[in-house]
């Protein structure tokens, strides 16, 4: 069939760019390889290499632009465009569409490598050929992920330009495609971007994180170049600023992911030790270790092997984490599902090539390393920095080993399930590492290279030590910090903050320019401090309303942390009184408005703020609860809905709202209390002095009026149903409280015991809506975010200082 209106030309253009980017990367890698040989042909090889890499860069730019044009023009004939975008979506999320898919995110990664490569072509000087040869080789592999060609039985890569929606194996038989004009069908639309990702964090988090990933290739390439060209020390100086930049950007990227999780996901926090989070944390820890060892070696020539090892490892771990999160292996054993595009095999090959390249070269060259003449002194800065880097390595190993359980299961045929209390497990394991690292951060800079007079050291550090100790007690007192195990980290991170502040002021004389390391360390310590306090003093203020003690069932059943809020009721929750106002729908989001009150001195309710946690009726993932958080300087109130009746949305209510539900009969005596769903009703008294004119009573009627007080939260109403006997039959006169939708009828008096029988009817709209909600307070979480910013500033200062030294 001839399909009308398809834009097949642009896909062909895109595909040409894909092939060109692969070919030129290959050419650049090979010619840079020969250029690195430094023989008489080297210069001409270099020329070819440079041009090839630039053409590779242009091709990547071509791919990116083509894909953008396709997304912006809604060319839904392409599977990628249909899969990740639609017409309704705001343009600002077009970026998110771009990298939502597997192919787009590889493209983003490739793009950053191109940017870094183009800078290195200018800045790497002597190292240009070997370093660029490695980077171009990485690009060969990344470009192959987009090729989308089939060799025999094997598919190589997935190409967004060649996969047409109507040819996609899953959709090709759909009746839509029996219409040659299917694209002109006004109702045909893309599947759209996952609404969860339509969040501003998701427009800035992926590019930042991928730039962080990309930056690890630079120390890796330099390390390989150093080994290859036997320039065992020369590679450090030019690659150090890059390593710092990697630490900064990857660190920020990870924390941005945490911020997104805290804002948009309802797992109740910013860090859940999720495999995907761990997969980027582990390379960061190794990169931080590498940066420190490279610095030692640069300054003192020690720990060379370990510096090489960690610089290579951090990039390999990026590849490993790509494998973990993209191959679908985590999805097989856990219920967390990850998208797969049949790339598992390719990713494994990719990873093993670089593992072999990196480690084989390291082992071969090991013998040629300059001999270390003397051992580090125990009171030297380099020794403790080395210890710190090793602690980071072990910490990363623990995280990585546990995250890899699905891999072990597959490799060794085991059947291990993930732990239930994963967060606790990780926290307990990581605490000692974090303690040692923060203690080292505190004392590290007070050690001198080579040797330190221990007397002087103790004199210098003692001030910070005692100040930190006093501050720790103060914090323990203020926050009622009661976990002894974790209080050692409380001390050590405060100690690290104070000691670095002290070092900055007293030793560096407040010169901010030189204080990059101190400031970065303060930031890191603050991140830990904020995470520690906000997590261990996290206070779940929503409590079980049932009164049943579920903890009797066992320790693991103490999760009575939900509160049931009925519309209009005011319940106590922590230090607040909360009222569920109602729900409203905006697009696919259903918001649940909850008001928060406190009592002032006179006992009056004062509204403090409102929160509107929502449930997103996500067409892609089902209903997803998203939290709403109120930020204060010293704490956050974080809430999300755990259960709500979404079926009875507003329209249903309108239909039945004015009808009265079935009457309920009550036999009561004076002083008794009744409850309707929205009010408290007290039976006050009976009287026979009924207003005859008002109620149009006739002579001979017997009338008794009952007096009720009807109380809701704000007001007091009266209801006076009248019992009338006329001509020997009971003809009661109803009494209504229209504001509350209540109707009273007075049916009977028992003269013996004074009891009366009434019936009470409620409007159907009174059957009130309710939600089940979880609310928690995160104290001092702002310390964590401040720490992030401080750490970023510190590392940037360190990069600038290093660049100043280099030039």
């Amino acid at each position, binding site marked *: 069939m001839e399909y009308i209106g398809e834009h097949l030309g642009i896909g062909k253009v895109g595909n040409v760019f894909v092939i060109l980017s692969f070919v030129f990367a290959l050419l650049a890698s090979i010619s840079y390889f020969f250029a690195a040989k430094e023989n008489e042909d080297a210069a001409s090889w270099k020329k070819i290499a440079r041009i090839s890499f630039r053409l590779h860069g242009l091709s990547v730019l071509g791919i990116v632009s083509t894909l953008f044009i396709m997304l912006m023009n809604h060319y839904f004939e392409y599977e990628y465009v249909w899969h990740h975008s639609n017409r309704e979506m705001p343009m600002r999320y077009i970026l998110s569409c771009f990298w939502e898919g597997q192919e787009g995110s590889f493209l983003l990664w490739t793009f950053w490598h191109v940017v870094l490569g183009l800078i290195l072509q200018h800045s790497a000087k002597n190292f240009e050929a070997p370093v660029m040869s490695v980077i171009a080789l990485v690009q060969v592999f990344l470009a192959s992920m987009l090729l989308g060609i089939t060799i025999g039985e094997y598919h190589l890569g997935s190409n967004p330009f060649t996969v047409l929606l109507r040819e996609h194996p899953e959709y090709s038989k759909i009746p839509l495609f029996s219409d040659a004009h299917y694209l002109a069908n006004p109702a045909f639309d893309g599947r759209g971007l996952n609404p969860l990702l339509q969040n501003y964090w998701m427009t800035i988090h992926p590019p930042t994180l991928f730039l962080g990933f990309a930056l690890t290739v630079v120390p890796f390439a330099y390390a390989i170049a150093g080994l290859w060209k036997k320039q065992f020390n020369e590679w450090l100086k030019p690659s150090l600023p890059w390593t710092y930049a990697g630490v900064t950007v990857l660190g920020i990227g990870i924390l941005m992911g945490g911020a997104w999780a805290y804002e948009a996901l309802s797992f109740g926090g910013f860090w859940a030790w999720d495999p995907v989070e761990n997969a980027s944390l582990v390379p960061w820890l190794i990169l931080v270790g590498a940066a420190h060892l490279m610095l030692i070696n640069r300054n003192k020539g020690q720990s060379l092997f370990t510096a090489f090892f960690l610089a290579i490892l951090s990039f390999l771990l990026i590849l490993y984490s790509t494998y973990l999160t993209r191959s679908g292996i985590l999805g097989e054993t856990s219920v967390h599902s990850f998208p797969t595009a049949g790339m598992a095999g390719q990713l494994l090959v990719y990873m093993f090539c670089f593992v072999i390249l990196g480690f084989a070269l390291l082992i071969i060259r090991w013998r040629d390393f300059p001999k270390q003449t003397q051992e580090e002194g125990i009171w030297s800065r380099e020794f403790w920095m080395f210890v710190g880097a*090793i602690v980071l390595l072990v910490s990363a190993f623990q995280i990585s080993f546990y995250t890899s359980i699905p891999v072990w299961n597959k490799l060794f045929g085991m059947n291990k399930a993930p732990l239930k209390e994963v967060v606790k497990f990780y926290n307990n394991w990581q605490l000692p590492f974090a303690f040692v690292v923060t203690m080292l951060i505190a004392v590290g800079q007070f050690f001198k290279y080579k040797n330190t007079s221990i007397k002087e050291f103790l004199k210098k550090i003692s001030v910070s030590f005692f100040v930190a100790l006093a501050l720790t007690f103060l914090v323990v007192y203020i926050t009622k910090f009661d976990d002894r195990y974790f209080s050692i980290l409380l001390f050590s991170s405060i100690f690290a903050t104070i000691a670095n502040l002290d070092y900055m002021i007293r030793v560096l004389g407040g010169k901010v320019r030189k204080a990059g390391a101190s400031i970065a360390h303060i930031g890191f310590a603050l991140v830990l401090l904020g995470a520690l306090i906000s997590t261990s003093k996290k206070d779940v203020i929503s409590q079980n309303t049932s009164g049943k003690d579920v903890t009797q069932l066992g320790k693991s*059943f103490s999760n009575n942390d939900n509160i049931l809020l009925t519309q209009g009721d005011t319940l106590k929750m922590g230090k607040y009184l909360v009222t569920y106002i109602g729900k409203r729908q905006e697009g696919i989001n259903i918001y649940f408005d909850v008001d928060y009150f406190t009592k002032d001195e006179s006992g009056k309710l004062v509204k403090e703020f409102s929160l509107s946690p929502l449930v997103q009726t996500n067409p*892609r993932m089902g209903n997803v609860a998203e939290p709403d958080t109120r930020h204060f300087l010293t704490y956050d109130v974080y809430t999300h809905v755990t259960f709500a009746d979404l079926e009875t949305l507003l329209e249903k209510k309108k239909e039945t709202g004015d009808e009265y539900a079935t009457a309920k009969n009550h036999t009561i005596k004076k002083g008794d209390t009744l409850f309707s769903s929205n009010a408290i009703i007290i039976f006050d008294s009976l009287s026979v002095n009924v207003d005859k004119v008002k109620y149009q009573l006739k002579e001979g009627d017997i009338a008794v009026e009952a007096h009720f007080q009807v109380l809701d939260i704000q007001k007091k109403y009266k209801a006076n149903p009248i019992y009338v006997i006329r001509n020997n039959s009971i003809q009661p006169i109803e009494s209504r409280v229209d504001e509350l939708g209540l109707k009273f009828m007075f049916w009977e008096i028992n003269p013996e015991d004074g009891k009366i029988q009434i019936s009470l009817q409620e409007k159907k709209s009174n059957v009130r809506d309710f939600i089940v909600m979880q609310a928690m307070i995160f104290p001092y979480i702002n310390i964590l975010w401040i720490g992030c910013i401080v750490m970023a500033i510190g590392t940037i200062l360190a990069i600038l200082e290093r660049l100043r030294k280099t030039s």
Partner: protein
Amino acid sequence: MKKIHILGIIIIAVAIGAIFTTLNNTSTYASFAEAASDPGSEFHVVGKLNKDKEAIYDPKIDANLFTFYMIDNKGMECKVVLHKNKPQDFERSEQIVLIGQMEGQEFQASDILMKCPSKYNEGQPTAVK
């Protein structure tokens, strides 16, 4: 012996400790029958919701109590008492993982993980809205 060697030994000890505790602390996937043979121990049981039987959740009585029937992968059915709120989209789940223990004839679950059907996840090209 050099300091570096002492450090190396400590690292190896910690690493072995990490491996050992990881392997010891994890529970395994099991069926209801296996969970019943070892009451009081925690298991992960994988299965499907029995849609023919009633799933009861009345948050007005207890917002943290939800009971339903699940059929495990070996075909055995068991009543499940979940001590949590009813998860959103529970009826749509295609696979359930329960974490908890057997007590008598009931499986007392403290946590639940769900997998939603891929068709629902993916959606299909359509011109009908």
